């Protein structure tokens, strides 16, 4: 039974290799069947892991000496999200021009690698897998090799390689100190080790690189470049914000669990999460390019997730994890439909897109469901669980501000959907390519999944995050008026303040060069070092 874990990692890689070698047509068309099997396997893992943790001894030597794959409840939820996302996105791109050899090979290898990251228990192995998946994703980002995507791809590749060098330095230091590489025995060795200064150095190296992978605020500016690349295929941006940013969150959670008894990190994670949520929203409100707007929202949503995961109460952590999974569903829906919108309207500026409601009813319904999920509408998402028990007035008002900012920037989407289709705008090269059958299927599945995740959260949450949210029907009904009230305030604020004034243009054009990003990275590393020492 545990050989499934081996299949989850090496299945897609071997399939991709044979498909790339034989170049058989039938293998390309059967790609989504294979991914359906993988999704079923990960579903089986999820239900099996409720009772006992699965593990597969990779080499005959016992753990500290050999290697092992293991699944616990945390990695099982990430596995489910990853395999479901790859199934949907392969369905979406199955007939398009992205199903030929190089692209589908890299897409399959990427799925196996990300499965491997969530399964592996060895720090050096996690470094190796992240390295390979970063190289693979850099190729996928620059698939069209046109002028802007080369600079963004180079920036993304270089800054992520610097972050992984920090990660490797932390891993090497831990090995030098404790002589062990895997997570369980490292935790034991850390438990015994007294908390002294030489322990903080490797931790801050690891923390900085995990923070950069999770696009925490000061180290965020590679993300809009990577996700918002004009020519990147929309399914690659969907994978990036759906699951690849979550690897950083996964690393932060693992680090928190690893160093829990020596250095409590959840305070730092919560503060960083709040800062990046707030700054992400301020940048997002100023954007007009649809993909950049969604990328800055990924930063703010990941910040919210980190604020939840770093929260002190169990309900906060479970709420953060649950929001992570639902974000992994509705954000790809946004990215994929924005790819279609860009093709239809021929422009990337959301203000030039008008009257989606007349053109395609289905796409607008899917977008409306996604907007309700992301802004935390009571029946569609349980974002409120993230700050449930926080009695500190400042933090609650901060969460309210972030939520209002999210609503403010998604008013642009609503304007796009419900605005009348003005005649003179329709000449802006509107080509209504009909949506293919597979694209409809994947759009519907994504919208359905994110809606069910919100509606049936009471039944799904014990399985996904083994914490059941006790929101009865009446609780959620009561929350509707306050939700609509904040929406109205956000609408009023948006209409009055956010006229395209100079400040908005300044925020939109704000960008750091590569050297400044590295300076920010080193100073972030030093600040974290002092902060942990001060804790």
């Amino acid at each position, binding site marked *: 039974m545990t050989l499934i874990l081996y299949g989850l990692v090496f299945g897609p890689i071997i399939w991709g*290799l044979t498909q790339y070698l034989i170049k058989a047509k039938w293998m390309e068309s059967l790609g989504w069947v294979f991914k359906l099997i993988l999704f079923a396997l990960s579903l089986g893992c999820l239900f099996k892991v409720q009772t006992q943790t699965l593990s*597969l*001894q*990779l*080499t005959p030597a016992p753990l500290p000496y050999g290697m092992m794959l293991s699944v616990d409840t945390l990695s099982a939820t990430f596995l489910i999200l990853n395999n479901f996302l790859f199934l949907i996105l392969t369905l979406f791109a199955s007939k398009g021009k992205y199903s030929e050899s190089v692209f589908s090979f890299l897409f399959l290898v990427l799925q196996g690698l990300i499965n491997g990251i969530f399964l592996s228990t060895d720090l050096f192995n996690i470094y190796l897998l992240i390295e390979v998946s970063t190289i693979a994703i850099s190729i996928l980002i620059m698939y069209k090799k046109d002028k802007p995507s080369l600079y963004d791809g180079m920036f993304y590749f270089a800054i992520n390689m610097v972050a992984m060098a920090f990660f490797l330095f932390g891993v090497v230091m831990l090995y030098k100190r404790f002589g062990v590489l895997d997570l369980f025995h490292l935790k034991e060795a850390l438990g015994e080790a007294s908390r002294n200064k030489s322990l903080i150095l490797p931790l801050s190296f690891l923390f900085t690189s995990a923070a950069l992978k999770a696009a925490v605020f000061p180290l965020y500016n590679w993300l809009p470049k990577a996700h918002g690349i004009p020519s990147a295929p929309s399914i690659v941006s969907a994978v990036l914000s759906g699951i690849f940013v979550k690897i950083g969150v996964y690393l932060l959670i693992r680090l928190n669990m690893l160093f829990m008894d020596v250095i409590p990190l959840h305070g730092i994670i919560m503060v960083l999460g709040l800062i990046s949520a707030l700054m992400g929203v301020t940048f997002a409100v100023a954007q007009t390019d649809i993909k950049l707007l969604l990328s800055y929202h990924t930063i703010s949503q990941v910040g919210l997730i980190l604020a939840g995961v770093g929260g002190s109460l169990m309900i906060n952590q479970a709420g953060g994890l649950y929001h992570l999974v639902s974000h992994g569903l509705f954000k790809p829906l946004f990215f994929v439909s924005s790819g279609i919108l860009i093709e239809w309207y021929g422009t990337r500026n959301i203000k030039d897109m008008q009257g989606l409601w007349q053109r395609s009813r289905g796409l607008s319904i899917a977008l409306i469901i996604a907007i309700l999920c992301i802004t935390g509408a009571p029946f569609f998402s349980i974002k409120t669980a993230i700050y449930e028990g926080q009695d500190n007035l400042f933090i609650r008002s901060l969460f309210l501000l972030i939520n209002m900012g999210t609503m403010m920037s998604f008013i642009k989407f609503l304007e796009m959907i419900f605005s009348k289709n003005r005649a003179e705008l329709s000449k802006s090269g509107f080509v209504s390519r009909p949506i293919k059958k597979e694209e409809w299927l994947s759009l519907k599945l994504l919208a359905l999944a994110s809606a069910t995740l919100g509606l049936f959260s009471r039944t799904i949450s014990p399985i996904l995050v083994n914490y059941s949210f006790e929101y009865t029907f009446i609780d959620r009904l009561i929350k509707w008026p306050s939700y609509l009230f904040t929406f109205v305030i956000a609408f009023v604020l948006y209409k009055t303040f956010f006229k395209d004034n100079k400040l908005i243009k300044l925020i939109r054009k704000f960008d750091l060069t590569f050297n400044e990003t590295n300076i920010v990275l080193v100073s972030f590393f030093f600040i974290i070092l002092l902060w942990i020492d001060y804790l």
Partner: protein
Amino acid sequence: MSDHSQLLSRSIGIIYPIILIFGLYVIFNGHVTPGGGFQGGAIIGAIMIAKYLADPIPFLSLEWTQSVEKATLLILYVLAALFCIVTTLQIVVGHFTIFLILSNTLIGLKVACGMSIIINRFVYYETR
């Protein structure tokens, strides 16, 4: 690089079999003496540089080398699956040295193909 020196190409013509033998030696008894798949493959890859220095005419067909490389990686993964099944089912298969030598040669072949592809790409394509 058209005016390649006669001296260089003559001497490399003599040396490269020795490099090849040394590379193969490093690969094959990687489990006894220091060395192994990666190091031996890199040495054999160095022959490509020597070949380019001798006479800069592209002779390696990249597609063929690339498919050889992918085939070796595939065999390596099948071998790995075999290794995992053998260890989980505790079938004792005598000495493991056969397995070590086999995977060393596969890695050596793969790294040699990989290095030669990279060198050829950079030398014949990137500089144009």
